[in-house]
């Protein structure tokens, strides 16, 4: 254990390795070329090893002593390792320190992220064909992304989390637009960035509110200070918590900010597997889980809202997924739906369940994306389910791992998804929100929605599986050329398949009852959150398990019924019977169209209007003022010339006229002058006498 501790106490290396890798790949892109994958994967394996050792150190305990330090602080898992440094200096009278910390949740996430990242890098090396121009760019971006995600889970405060959050957003943008020559990736990347940015602005304002309330953004500080302000600023804290959640809604593609994720599928599949399935989109869930001291202390309605948004999203997205034709799009909506599940669980107070599902989901959803990528790769980049069929014989390994992921997602008993979904639904069943009074049926509504989602999930996954792997080939040309993927692709899939099947046994409540074995409750202990008491009667747990299993199996059954038993013609008849509903769901409830009108077109019109206003009104005022100025000057000039000058010339004219009169007196005759002189003198004398 001491050996593992050394790794825990240098956990920053896990963060530094991918960053270094990314920089090196970017710097030596030309000389590395396709060898970048070896370098990237190698470095990531080191990071994975480091993470596993850290995980072992954390899971092995030994951080109980530190727990006393913040005793009484609810909703705070005491970090097993924590460092801080001064990156900000003073701002105002505050000094915001940046820091990293590791606790149980972080340790799990570290392993998940580095593992999936290593898998992705191995997988991508074969996925990209020889003509790929931006091979190294992909690897640099993936490593940078991994840095961001690792930084996010290691961050000890909201600000650093936000920074990493946006770095991931940037990488997501870059990877969606990997093939930016085409229109779809270019639009998809902008849509992704902007939609998440809308959430991020809300999140930033949430952070401002939290800073205003607690004057601190570290998890420890928030957990300590928020309970003190709740009495005075309860409503504000609620608002802050909700706004923080909008960030999670953007990142985790929750309704109504979910529209970007399907379009993110325009990127290369390995990138989608890492970013848009396993890790980045889970960051929103992680945020809610990590910042639970905010939600736990906030008024109860916030978590209720969170729960219902999650529940609604999961149901909503699952229903859309039932009618998608693109294999990646099915998975994308499935991801949205599953993320909604986790969000719901967190909102319902099922903190451990939500995080546990986040972990299992990361494994099986990455796996499904890999498998889908392998299918697409084998099928000459065809993604349409209706052109596939019967592929199980052509690509058996891919088929096998797909089945592992499929059954895990569908919640087939014994697979990882079964256990995590079970815990999640149990949390929904036993929900009792604090400080919020609700009607009885509302209390059970999330559970019903969750159960329906479980059913739909099983159904659409069965549908996709059947269409892709069973039945007769629908496009023989593509079928004949299908080929199994090389080892770089199936090896990572195999690793993830094993985890998809077995990782659920880390928290297998029912088997634990039957067979015993403390290790089966490992994650329940690891994900213990102070302040949340998870108590469920055994009978309730059994009932939930039974219901969940039934829902899953019914879904699988329905899928088989519709696609194996019922003929396509009958299906078409049924579809035309329910045409309006079919169209509504098929068109994704027209959300994209509504947004297009409501936001995009409006903004465009507004911006054109403003620009016109600037050019034709503000500038016109300025130019008009200028024109008034010049015209005023002209007027002044005219006035000067015609009036002022005229005044002067008039004087001159007058004096000239007078002078003309006087001129006549100047005869040039000396004697006249003299006479005048005499007259004047005499007159002066006389006048002088008179006056005196």
């Amino acid at each position: 254990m001491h050996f593992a501790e050394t790794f825990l106490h240098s956990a920053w290396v896990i963060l530094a390795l991918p960053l270094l890798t990314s920089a090196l790949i970017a710097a030596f892109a030309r000389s590395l070329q396709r060898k970048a994958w070896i370098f990237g994967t190698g470095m990531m394996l080191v990071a994975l090893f480091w993470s596993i050792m850290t995980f072992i150190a954390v899971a092995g305990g030994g951080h109980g002593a530190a727990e006393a330090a913040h005793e009484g602080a609810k909703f705070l898992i005491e970090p097993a390792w924590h460092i801080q440094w001064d990156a900000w200096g003073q701002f105002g009278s505050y000094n915001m320190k940046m820091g990293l910390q590791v606790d149980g949740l972080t340790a799990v996430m570290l392993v998940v992220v580095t593992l999936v990242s290593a898998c992705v890098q191995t997988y991508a090396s074969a996925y990209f064909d020889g003509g790929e121009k931006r091979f190294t760019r992909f690897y640099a971006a993936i490593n940078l992304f991994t840095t961001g995600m690792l930084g996010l889970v290691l961050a000890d405060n909201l600000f650093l989390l936000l920074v990493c959050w946006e770095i991931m957003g940037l990488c997501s943008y870059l990877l969606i637009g990997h093939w930016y020559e085409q229109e779809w990736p270019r639009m998809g990347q902008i849509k992704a960035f902007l939609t998440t940015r809308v959430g991020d602005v809300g999140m930033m304002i949430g952070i401002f509110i939290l800073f205003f309330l607690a004057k601190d953004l570290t998890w420890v500080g928030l957990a300590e200070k928020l309970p003190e302000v709740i009495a005075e600023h309860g409503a504000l804290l609620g608002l802050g918590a909700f706004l923080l959640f909008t960030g999670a809604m953007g990142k985790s593609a929750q309704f109504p900010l979910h529209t970007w994720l399907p379009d993110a599928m325009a990127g290369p599949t390995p990138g989608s597997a890492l970013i848009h399935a396993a890790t980045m989109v889970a960051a929103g869930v992680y945020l809610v889980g990590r910042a639970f001291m905010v939600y736990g202390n906030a008024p109860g309605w916030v978590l209720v809202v969170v729960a219902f948004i999650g529940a609604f999203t999961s149901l909503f997205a699952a229903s859309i997924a039932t009618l998608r034709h693109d294999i990646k799009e099915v998975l994308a909506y499935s991801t949205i739906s599953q993320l909604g599940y986790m969000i719901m669980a967190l909102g319902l107070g099922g903190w451990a369940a939500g995080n546990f599902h986040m972990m299992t989901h990361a494994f099986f959803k990455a796996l499904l994306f890999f498998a889908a990528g392998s299918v697409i790769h084998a099928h000459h980049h065809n993604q349409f389910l209706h052109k596939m069929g019967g592929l199980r014989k052509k690509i058996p390994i891919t088929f096998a791992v797909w089945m592992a992921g499929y059954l895990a997602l569908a919640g087939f008993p014994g697979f990882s998804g079964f256990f995590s979904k079970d815990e999640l639904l149990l949390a929904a069943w036993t929900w009792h929100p604090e400080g919020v009074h609700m009607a009885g049926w509302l209390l059970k509504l999330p559970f019903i929605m969750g159960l329906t989602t479980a059913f739909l999930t099983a159904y659409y996954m069965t549908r996709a599986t059947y269409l892709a792997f069973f039945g007769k080939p629908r496009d023989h040309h593509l079928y004949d050329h299908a080929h199994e993927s090389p080892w770089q692709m199936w090896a990572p899939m195999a690793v993830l398949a094993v985890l998809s099947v077995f990782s659920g046994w880390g928290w297998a409540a029912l088997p634990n009852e039957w067979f015993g074995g403390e290790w089966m409750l490992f994650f329940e202990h690891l994900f213990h959150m102070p302040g949340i008491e998870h108590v469920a009667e055994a009978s309730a747990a059994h009932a939930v398990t039974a219901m969940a299993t039934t829902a899953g199996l019914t879904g699988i059954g329905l899928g088989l019924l519709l696609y194996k038993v019922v003929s396509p013609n009958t299906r078409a008849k049924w579809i035309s019977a329910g045409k309006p509903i079919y169209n509504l769901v098929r068109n994704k409830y027209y959300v994209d169209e509504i947004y297009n009108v409501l936001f995009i077109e409006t903004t465009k019109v507004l911006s054109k209007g403003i620009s016109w206003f600037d050019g034709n009104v503000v500038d016109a005022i300025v130019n008009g003022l200028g024109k008034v100025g010049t015209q005023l000057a002209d007027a002044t000039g005219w006035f000067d010339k015609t009036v002022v000058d005229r005044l002067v010339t008039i004087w001159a004219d007058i004096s000239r006229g007078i002078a003309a009169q006087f001129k006549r007196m100047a005869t040039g005759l000396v004697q006249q002058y003299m006479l005048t002189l005499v007259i004047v003198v005499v007159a002066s004398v006389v006048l002088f006498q008179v006056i005196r």
Partner: protein
Amino acid sequence: MLSLIVFAPMAMALLMLFVPKTQEKLLFILAGIGSLIPLVATLPLLAGWSGAAVSTETYAKGMRFVEHFNWIPKVGVSYTFGVDGFAITMIALSVLLFPIAILASYGYIKTRVKDYLILLLILMTGTNGVFSALDFILFYVFWEIVLLPMYFLIGIWGGARREYAAIKFFIYTLVGSVVMLVGAIYLYLQAGGTSFNILELATKTSQLPVTGLTTFAFFALVVGFAVKVPMFPFHTWLPDAHVEAPTPISMLLAGILLKLGSYAMIRISHPLLPQVAKQYAWVLFALGVAGILYAALAAMAQKDFKKQVAYSSVNHMGFFVIALSAASILPRDMAEVALQGGYIVTIAHGIISPIFFFAVGMFYERTHTRDLGKLGGMFVTIPVVSFMTAFVAFANLGLPGLAGFIGEFITLTGVYPAYGLWVLVAGAGLVITAAWHLLTMRNVLLGEGKKEYAGLPDVTTKEKLIFAPLAVLTVLFGVWPAPIMNLLHDAVQTLSQVIALGGK
């Protein structure tokens, strides 16, 4: 030392008068030296900042590296230089940008090189002088010194509509500065007419009651500065000036000249009349927040790449304006946060926007167009230039981890307590800013490479040299803003104290 920083370029300009104008290379070398001397002279000031003596004299309270001589004692005009955190950061920015601009001019400016360089050096003296002066008259002299070279630099070396732009710039700023002078002289007389020293004035004028005349004086000052900032609705000279100005001048215009306005607000209008500022803070906030949204939307609709970037300046400086507005009504601890944030926005903008303009210039030099409809697929054609552009675009839209974000984040942190959810409007501005950056990148950088641009030369060493220092600073301050924070800290505390004591 400050005098050296201020006057060395001017001295070099005088020396260059005696160099024949055919010796272009020599002229560039001399101009480079003239602009590097202040840079070298600034380094010890930065290095010795925390150890430097802080003046306690009334004419330079809280300032460092003070130089003080009587000039026209009868009316209380003195030659007083001194810097605090607000000033030294701006001086550092200025002395960094001018050598870069001169390097960017090399080979780019081909006509009347001698006149150009001399004007540039005079401009440098003007900006450094504004940031160093503590006496209002001295300040005003430098303020006007800035105006003239800029007029000629745009009017002679500009684009097609250069004369229109130059005159617009000139009249706008001249009207602004005259209005400002009127306001300042009124305050000088109100304060007893004994001293033009800004700090001494402030101690008296900040206690004046809020009357019609002090309000007038405040807005006279603010309008004078707002034109330079530029603050909505006094901004329309900026897009024209930028579009017509040659690239190096655009870099300076965005990097330094706009900061004259923000600096002057921090140094003059708000310390002098904090009580009025408090009462009319909402006016500044309304204009600032309107400017953020307005400029973002206006930028989105532009067809001209450079005009877009110019509007983004209005957008960013709006953040400074709302920070200042918030700082004038908040209690001290949050006011400090707002002030620091707002000022960091200006610094970050001073680092990022020059290279953004430079990036636009790189495209223009190669393709001879700035029309967003005509550019396209540049990532395929000239990848390195495109990468640089993408980098700076992300910096400009406020990506966390780069310098632009820190300031916006702290600003809004500080503004939130003052105006509550009105920050959502600024937030909407952030989203729209991001939107047009992305759309522009899509138009210019992404897509298939265009045939007419095939074979364009990629980045040159000179361009890398120009780009690198500012890009490094962008990243550095994005992850480690502590150096700026610590430089500003004292000054922010002093100013927030002045504001808090105003009218009491």
